[in-house]
């Protein structure tokens, strides 16, 4: 086996952990081949794997992020326009904080500083949708081609979505107070010790915030994995049905969950025969849009712009779902 393959299996997919959990489950008298034993194995292994990977990844990524506070991103993007500026905004969105709760202050800060809506929305779409931690988790649970394809299409939605919103000429569809907000630049430089402390705090804060979602997600995943017959899943979400992608997207939009919580559900669904595009559409809908974030956004943009944003993002997700279902043979 190649070195890369071995590293991938042991570090990323954590084969050793799976083996360890399997033998521990057998040791307490449960047969991993049975439904109950299998559920317990899936639950314990997935929970441990996600928490381990998450902690390591958030630490590493937060360290990188400490070099790109929103103030710096805004300076980098300031005065630019055109497709390259949208691409740059989408890329910078991948290395900024995970939480969708920070997107409203960022929206106000960018718009008040005079950045065009096209750039701001490219950034806002990519920020929750694509981040480095979720990419590596996707590679761990599925494979590298799927993870890279996810990043590519996520960035495409962000770039195209931002561009379309910019073309719509809705610069005036922003809540009035946004334009009059002062622009401040309290950007302090950090020492290495401060960056390490920041990264450590991020791990504590994010794990603290997402652990219930992960437990629920893995729990649902374990149920799907061992108790729901593949025929049911295929009949509902198989790639033969034209309505499975819209169904998955509509269910996903109002839900609020972290991508880390949806991954185990996605994993179980795909192994049970759900279409890959359907499952990706579900994950994107859950992470890119949620009822709380829509309500927050409503306070800073006027209704036509909000509707346009929802339509553009939903349309992008639907398109990607259908495309991936058609291209599934390339990935699985």
């Amino acid at each position, binding site marked *: 086996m190649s070195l890369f393959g071995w590293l991938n299996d042991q570090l990323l997919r954590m084969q050793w952990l799976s083996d360890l959990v399997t033998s521990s489950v057998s040791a307490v008298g449960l047969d991993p081949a049975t439904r109950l034993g299998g559920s317990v194995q899936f639950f314990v292994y997935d929970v441990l794997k996600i928490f381990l990977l998450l902690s390591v990844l958030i630490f590493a990524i937060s360290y990188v992020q400490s070099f790109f*506070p929103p103030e710096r991103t805004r300076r980098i993007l300031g005065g630019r326009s055109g497709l390259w500026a949208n691409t740059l905004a989408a890329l910078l969105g991948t290395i900024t904080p995970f939480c969708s*709760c920070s997107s409203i202050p*960022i929206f*106000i800060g960018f718009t008040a500083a005079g950045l065009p809506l096209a750039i701001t929305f490219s950034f806002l779409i990519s920020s929750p949708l694509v981040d480095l931690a979720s990419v590596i988790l996707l590679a761990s649970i599925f494979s590298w081609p799927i993870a890279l394809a996810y990043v590519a299409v996520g960035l495409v939605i962000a770039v195209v979505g931002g561009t379309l919103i910019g073309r719509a000429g809705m610069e005036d569809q922003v809540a009035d107070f946004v334009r009059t907000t002062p622009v401040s630049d309290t950007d302090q430089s950090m020492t290495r010790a401060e960056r390490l402390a920041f990264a450590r705090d991020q791990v504590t*804060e994010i794990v603290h915030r997402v652990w219930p979602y992960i437990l629920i997600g893995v729990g649902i995943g374990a149920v799907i994995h061992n108790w729901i017959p593949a025929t049911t899943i295929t009949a509902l979400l198989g790639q033969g049905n034209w309505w499975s992608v819209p169904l998955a997207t509509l269910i996903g939009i109002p839900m609020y969950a972290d991508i880390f919580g949806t991954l185990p559900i996605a994993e179980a669904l795909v192994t049970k025969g759900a279409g890959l595009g359907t499952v990706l559409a579900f994950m994107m809908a859950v992470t890119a849009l949620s009822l709380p974030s829509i309500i927050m956004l409503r306070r800073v943009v006027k209704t036509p712009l909000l509707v346009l944003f929802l339509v553009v993002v939903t349309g992008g997700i639907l398109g990607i779902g259908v495309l991936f279902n058609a291209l599934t043979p390339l990935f699985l």
Partner: protein
Amino acid sequence: MIIKILGSGCKKCLTLGTNAQTAARSAGKQAEIVKVTDIAQIAAYGLMSTPGLVIDEKLVSAGKVLSAQEIEKLL
């Protein structure tokens, strides 16, 4: 003087509030600590990451938990 802590109630904001209190006490200043949790009001100060520290309506720090000593210098 009025010291405002901007942030939607995270642990960092609580720490920053405590540090500000300590700083004001050791500087011997009479300070009222106000917590601002509404996102629109927070953003109105122009910051993009929380927690933020506002002293007499002037934003002095964002996205960082300052120590009591650091705050004391700003008072």
